[in-house]
């Protein structure tokens, strides 16, 4: 496994020059090489979804993608969701509605919901439920996660994010 590749990862609009083994997952590269530890690993086999990030605006489990596969694509992580200290509507809704407890699964849920709502702002509650069923939370019983995402969806419809995101 000695052969390493020089790649450039573009994460939250910033370029990171990395030297990685081909087997290095995107999740590990984000966390260990870019220092972006907001993306969490709950299972490393694609079930829990805690490591969900957006790759070219689509939710992806970063534990199932190699870093080298992400070269040349736009990666977005939870660190890029707020604008400075102004929380994204999803973050705000999760805060106000107790959509998190331990917070470990939260970045994955936020990125999953952000990707889904950007792709289709008019998702129904049933559709949102269906999408969120791909991620696991062990603390909240999902009650306030669904509530938060639905409220954020309303807010995002009322105030669509600007094109410069």
């Amino acid at each position, binding site marked *: 496994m000695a052969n390493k590749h020089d790649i450039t990862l573009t994460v939250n609009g910033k370029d990171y020059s990395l030297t990685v083994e081909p087997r290095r997952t995107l999740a590990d590269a984000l966390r260990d090489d870019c220092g972006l530890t*907001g993306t969490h690993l709950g299972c490393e*086999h694609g079930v829990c979804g805690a490591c969900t990030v957006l790759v070219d605006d689509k939710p992806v489990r970063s534990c199932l993608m190699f870093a080298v596969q992400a070269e040349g694509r736009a990666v977005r992580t939870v*660190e890029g969701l707020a604008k400075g200290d102004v929380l994204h509507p999803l973050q705000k809704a999760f805060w106000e509605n107790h959509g998190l407890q331990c917070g470990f699964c939260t970045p994955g849920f936020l990125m999953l919901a952000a990707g889904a709502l950007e792709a289709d702002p008019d998702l129904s509650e049933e559709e949102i439920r269906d999408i969120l*069923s791909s991620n696991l939370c062990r*603390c909240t019983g999902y009650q306030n996660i669904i509530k938060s995402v639905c409220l954020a969806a309303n807010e995002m419809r009322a105030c669509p994010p600007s094109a410069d995101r």
Partner: protein
Amino acid sequence: MSWIGRSLPRLEDPSLLMGRGRYVADLARGAASVKFVRSPVAAGRILSIDVPDGELVFTAADLAGVKPICPILHRPDYIAVEQPILARDRVMFCGQALAVVVAEDQSLAEDLAEQVFADIDAEDAIVDMDTALAEGATAVHAHAPGNVLVEGVLRSPGLDAAFTDAAEIVSLDLRSGRQSAMPLEGRGGVAQYDRISGRVTLYASVQMPHMLRTGLADVLQMPEADLRVVAPDVGGGFGQKMSLFPEYVVLVWLARKLERDVAWIEDRRENFLASSHSRDQSFRVRGAFAKDGTLLGIDADLKSNVGAFSCYPVTCGVEPLMALAELPGPYKVAEYGVRSRGVTTNTGMMAPYRGVSRPMLTLTMERMMDVAAKRLGIDPIEIRRRNLIDTFPHRSPTGLVYDEGSYKEAMDRAVEAIDLTGFRARQREARAAGRYLGIGFSVFSERTGYGTPAYAARGMNIVPGYEIVSCAMDPSGFVEARIGSSPHGQGLKTALAQLIADELGVEPGKVKVISGDTDATPYGWGTFASRSMVIAGGACKLAAGKVATRLRSVAAVMMQADEDQVVLEDGLARVTGTNQSLPIPEVARASYHQSHRFGQAGPGLIENATYDPGGTFSNACHACIVEVDIETGGVKIERFVVAEDAGVLINPMIVDGQIHGGVAQGIANALFEELVYDETGNLLTVSLADYLPPTIAEVPKIEIEHLVTLSDATITKAKGVGEGGAIGAPAAIINATVDALSPFGVEIFQIPATPQHIRKLIREAERNAHG
């Protein structure tokens, strides 16, 4: 204006939401990676362990001088067992650590671990309790023939008479599968070595940092002062992060040995294999009932599979002894006989998980009530009403004293909220249309916030229970509360800040709760047993109250008023009946910088307080409606109602969150999750694809009704609420499922009630019907 009772958004959240949380794995950068080599077999003799040359690989032989983990109960029926830090001579369960490797990064550590080969002469493993208890069974631990590590027996004198007098005797055999608390963040630790002082700081994902430090110092035979344990943000624990695990001992040992930082971050497979398990209980219970449904007596034989080792510090007695003490739950019963055993096997160690035995106890009592009701021709709600505790304080046959509760009232509230009468009509219509709906109830008590007397009574060598809080207002008027308790994601800091804010008349945002760092907090017991709000909360109230007294006396001097006339509210020290007031920060500053003026009050605003209560009982009734698909055996929960009495709710939103999460884990216990070993002791469920934790698709909306009983057993009037959801849900779901399947006469006595199990019961029922 009171902060208590408000659904204040959590102070913890902004950093967590922005990805700025600091969980253990986030602190591992720069540290060498540690990987454990684990036993592939459940039982056997270690013949040799081959390790690659020139690499950092360590086995038990290297750890000479490190003591095994050996928790103690002072009971004649307890047999202590030693857990070596790395397996020596023998392996005792599949996944036990045999060796440890250290490499520059995680993937290299994994490569290196694959080069370690253990030659183990495998032997037949004892996997289940029946095998362990069979006549002539091999002893899992040579000094514990019979394979029972703890056995409690009680028998009230009138028990036989109760059964002789009974109009109906209900005999049940119940079984709960083995489960994992499965926090989404697994265990993990980063041990940092300080070359100047020689001290080690262990960052670890744990619920009991002080206890961990004590345990580590004991087995490593080092002064506690040379070790600092920090629990940073913790990604859930649910009991699994309470115990002293060998992995943490190895980390501290490695940091000292190698004089460098080392990190071990558990992966999911490892979490299933090598962290603790729970439940895995088998209960045989008889209930003696009078004709009118009065429960006259209970006779119980309770077995808990405690696995290969005993967890430190609470020991393998935690489930068996809880079962023994609390089986009667919320019901009056005069005569009680019980034998409760902790049975050792070649499986993973059993340790606390949210609820500890009570999910199974509640399942037992609630199934018994439904079965007895059916046999005696009494309504299931009515039979409960006739037996529930209704005078307080109530003394149980095992000597537990229940404080004020609302057992009947909570049940009535749940019955009303779920519209039992309306449901029965709907159920008839559905049945006519070939759909199988059912309704089920579960009433339970949740013993919470108990202090040292409860643990001392259990015979624990290390007696947890109290909390110490150090509360200080600094010269800028901000408050620091240093607590021995240690949150694991439940929002404790916000709730405590609300309590303290009320005592001191400041906003919660001015209260910093400092926890989880043995260098920065007083000795305490962390988070478990639904204790933090009650006990740490009580200590916070007392400590902040003492600071408030000092603050008022300083303010009184400053305003030349009588101390009794000074009140603290809205950021001001006010003299009642006047328009005189001072901003609290001004008073705080004077207390530190003008102390010569205040005589008795002295300098500074720092106070400690300790709280060690006897304990209190929350109570609740869970009610649910399910639909069973008789073709697949799948159970869908249509409605779930919780009528809960946790006393005063400090932060209702957080309380509801605790109930939601608990119920979801109860649903998991009832229908989905089970750790399965094969007959050789090999764990088959080692991924989340096998273990089946419920997703949002399986968890329905959870409706909550609150009742508030004020009890003198808790000085904040708050009762603990962390475990109730998990305790009550399985019984309500199983009773509802049985109700749905009543046309088949199916009874369910085991959880998880998987589709396969339900289909089997339906098939058997159909076969019998067509006989």
